[in-house]
């Protein structure tokens, strides 16, 4: 006898907890409906971790929102298919019924822990109402359950956090709060949409470990949506690869990584930078596998550096009190020194707040700083806008977000021409020709010059940004997380282009990045920054192959490897937060003591802060 279709069937070990059949989701666009998820089939067993991987636009997030019934209304809707949770059909369930399912039987956490919590409500309230929404509990019980939920995600001093607001917590802690909220009612399924993408690697490792523990302790099945094949290899039991709304491959994690059936999976995996892949190679490697990456400049010949940085210090004042006097300071960069030689890529790596971007901005003279910086023989300290102008010809910058760094009201041709116009390098026909040449250089058709930025994809826009930077024939480009926002396949193309330009024009790059695998691939030398200081610098091969500073080691171990056989059964405990660089006025940074391990490989011996010990 069949039970009533609405009643949840009793769970059993072999019956899937979630079954999606032929899911088709449409988004209304001005040009008619667009199918974003097309005939998706998914099966999720109890306690299983299923990773949905794919690049942007693959429909993986839309699939998750469809399951949750959280599609942005009224633009998006489920056009066909069935979603069964514990045997109960969710499509076509009314909003009130669906509300009872959400948060209780199936929960979701999102990519941005910074924006996913309400800034004006306390943590205690936000977690508490997730419980209240599904259970009627008294006030005392609610507090107890809320504290328990926070403790379950290993938030220290949980009781004290109840009164805190989201902005008082770090990114990692906020994501823990999100997980606490999602898990508070003991759902059978947790959907995590890029839960660690916005977090630093060491924090990412903590969150992934937490998710594994929760799965083990509560038997929650997890759908983990990610673009990061390292995270997939680390976490998944089974993998679903999506591309343009369609499922292209579905299988156990080992099979997908080692015997991918679909051509798309093979391309995707091939494009993933693998940390340690170039351990026995000096200098950068083209991702396409072609030879011709620029050889490392010979340190013995000692050409004049393009940039010399000595004792660079950047501090920001925090004011307060009646007279707005300086009460504390952010020690963003503390006594950083390095040289950057022609044709060389020096990578600055570190986690958020370590001062790597600030160093880049100081190099461009965009912020006040102390110390000495020489760009191509000109000391830039204290140079005004006008005096800095000739120097800017030699040093250009490419930013992280190719969407925000191009003025939407200018054609891309004008955008690329603008720096040359400002510097009076060319005009009229000549300027036109130069712009066309730059477009060809970055492998875009010159005919696209009259279009506007929104007509281009992320990768194309980043090429346009590079073309704009190249217009002044700079000797040095500061690339601040320039490929971080791009999908791996596009990322590989842009990195390739950057290396090609380096080989042709002898460009130097200051490559600022948090992505250790990308850094390994592109750089000649690496400088690891921690708390505003360089703690280790040297040839890429030396720093990655024989890391000496505890923080460098910690960073390298925290990176998930895109190889399911190399999975760490349980992560080395990477506890602790990234410390704050805000210090009292009388704070004097302890002096650094350096040791030259081998020629050019220099390590800070002055005792890493205890948090870095690992």
């Amino acid at each position, binding site marked *: 006898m069949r039970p009533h279709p609405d009643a949840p069937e009793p769970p059993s070990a072999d019956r899937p907890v979630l079954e999606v059949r032929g899911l088709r989701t449409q988004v209304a666009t001005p040009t008619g409906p667009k199918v974003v998820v097309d005939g998706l089939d998914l099966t999720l067993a109890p306690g299983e971790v299923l990773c949905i991987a794919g690049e942007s636009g693959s429909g993986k997030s839309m699939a998750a929102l469809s399951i949750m019934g*959280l599609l942005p209304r009224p633009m998006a809707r489920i056009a066909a298919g069935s979603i069964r949770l514990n045997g109960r059909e969710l499509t076509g369930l009314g909003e009130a019924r669906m509300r009872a399912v959400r948060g209780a039987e199936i929960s979701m956490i999102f990519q941005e822990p910074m924006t996913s919590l*309400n*800034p004006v409500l306390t943590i205690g309230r936000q977690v508490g*109402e*997730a419980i209240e*929404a599904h259970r009627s509990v008294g006030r005392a019980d609610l507090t107890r359950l809320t504290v328990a939920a926070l403790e379950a995600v290993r938030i220290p001093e949980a009781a004290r956090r109840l009164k805190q*607001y989201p902005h008082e917590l770090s990114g990692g802690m906020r994501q823990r709060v999100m997980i606490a909220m999602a898990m508070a009612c003991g759902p059978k399924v947790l959907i995590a949409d890029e839960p660690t993408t916005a977090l630093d690697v060491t924090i990412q490792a903590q969150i992934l470990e937490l998710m594994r523990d929760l799965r083990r302790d509560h038997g929650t099945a997890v759908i983990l949506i990610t673009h990061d094949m390292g995270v997939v290899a680390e976490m998944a039991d089974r993998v679903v690869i999506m591309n343009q709304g369609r499922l292209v491959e579905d299988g156990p994690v080992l099979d997908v990584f080692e015997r991918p059936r679909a051509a798309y999976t093979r391309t995707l995996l091939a494009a993933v930078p693998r940390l340690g892949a170039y351990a026995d190679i000096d200098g950068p490697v083209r991702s396409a596998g072609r030879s011709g990456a620029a050889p490392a400049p010979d340190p013995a010949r000692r050409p004049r550096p393009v940039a010399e940085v000595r004792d660079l210090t950047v501090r920001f004042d925090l004011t307060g*009190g009646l007279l707005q006097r300086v009460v504390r300071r952010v020690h963003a960069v503390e006594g950083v020194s390095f040289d950057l030689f022609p044709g060389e890529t020096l990578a600055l790596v570190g986690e958020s707040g370590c001062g790597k971007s600030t160093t880049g901005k100081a190099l461009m003279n965009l912020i006040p700083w102390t110390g000495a910086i020489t760009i191509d023989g000109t000391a830039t300290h204290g140079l005004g806008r006008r005096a800095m102008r000739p120097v800017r010809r030699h040093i250009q910058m490419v930013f992280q977000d190719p969407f925000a760094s191009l003025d939407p009201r200018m054609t891309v041709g004008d955008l690329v021409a603008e720096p040359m116009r400002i510097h009076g390098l060319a005009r009229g026909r000549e300027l036109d020709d130069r712009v066309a040449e730059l477009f060809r250089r970055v492998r875009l058709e010159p005919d696209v010059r009259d279009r506007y930025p929104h007509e281009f994809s992320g990768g194309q826009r980043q090429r346009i940004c590079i073309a704009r930077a190249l217009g002044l024939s700079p000797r040095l480009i500061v690339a601040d997380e320039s490929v971080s926002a791009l999908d791996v396949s596009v990322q590989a193309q842009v990195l390739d282009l950057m290396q090609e330009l380096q080989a042709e024009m002898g460009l130097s790059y200051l490559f600022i990045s948090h992505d250790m695998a990308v850094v390994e691939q592109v750089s000649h030398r690496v400088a690891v920054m921690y708390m505003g200081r360089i703690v280790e610098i040297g040839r890429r091969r030396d720093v990655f192959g024989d890391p000496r500073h505890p923080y460098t080691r910690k960073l390298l171990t925290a990176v998930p490897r895109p190889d399911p056989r190399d999975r760490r059964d349980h992560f080395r405990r990477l506890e602790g937060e990234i410390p704050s660089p805000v210090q009292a006025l009388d704070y004097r940074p302890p002096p650094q003591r350096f040791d030259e391990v081998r020629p050019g490989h220099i390590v800070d011996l002055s005792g890493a802060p205890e948090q870095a010990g690992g």
Partner: protein
Amino acid sequence: MAAYILRRLIQAVLILIGVSFVTFVLLYLVPADPARQIAGRSATAETVANIRAQLGLDQPFYVQYWRYFTGMIQGDLGRSYLQKTEVAELIAARLPATLQLMGGAIVWELLLGLTTGIVAALKRGTWVDNTLMVASFIGVSAPQFVVGILLLYVFAVLLGWFPIGGYGTFAHLILPSFTLGILGAGWYSRMMRSSMLDVLRQDYIRTARAKGLDRVRIVLRHALPNAVLPVIAMIGIDVGLFMSGIVVVESVFGWPGIGQLAWQAIQRVDIPIIMGVTLVSAVAIVLGNLLADLIAPFIDPRIKLR
């Protein structure tokens, strides 16, 4: 917090000194001659000169301003040329009526503006939204003297629900405060709608839905406090808008506030009163803004007053 308020009050004093100076300069440059106004048309040149000397208007500008300034910082706003009364007393006598009118207007603004704004945002793109936005547009663009006279005609003359003019009971307050508030309500409605639409797109609203919260709770607890912040900041500025509004509204409804006082003074070039009312307006604007800034951190804990 205390340091913040103190600093803001010190800033306020500097602003008021600046306002007094600029107003004084403007009135000094105005071609109208107060002495002539007082003396009347038929007075001889000698009489006018006498009055001018009595009032000190024959002194050089800096002497006149210095005399006013030293008086002002002691709380002495001078005497009205025509009414022969202390300006401070005149204003003090009429201020309660004006504050009552403004208070009523703020209540209307928030009541109408916020609710219509929220409803319009939740019903975006529907006829409800369109109707409310047309209404708010009318509210913003209708001249206050037209609105006031229309309301008087319909509700006081035709229907007889409210008194035709004057001051005293709660019933007297309804129509003038509504007239004064309708402009702000239109603004708030539009601001609240766009602010609400913006907030409803935020990730934390999606989180709230993912938790399984109901719609009422999502709107009132998660969206409203975030959406109301820009409106709070607006209230401070609004007090300034009121000052021009009350001149019209008080005249239409015969409301005995400082708006009427100002109107009479402007007609007769009674400079001390004009100066006094201007300074009181400036104080109101400064305090209104300070109040709005002080309320904000209670709604958004990220705002720190330093």
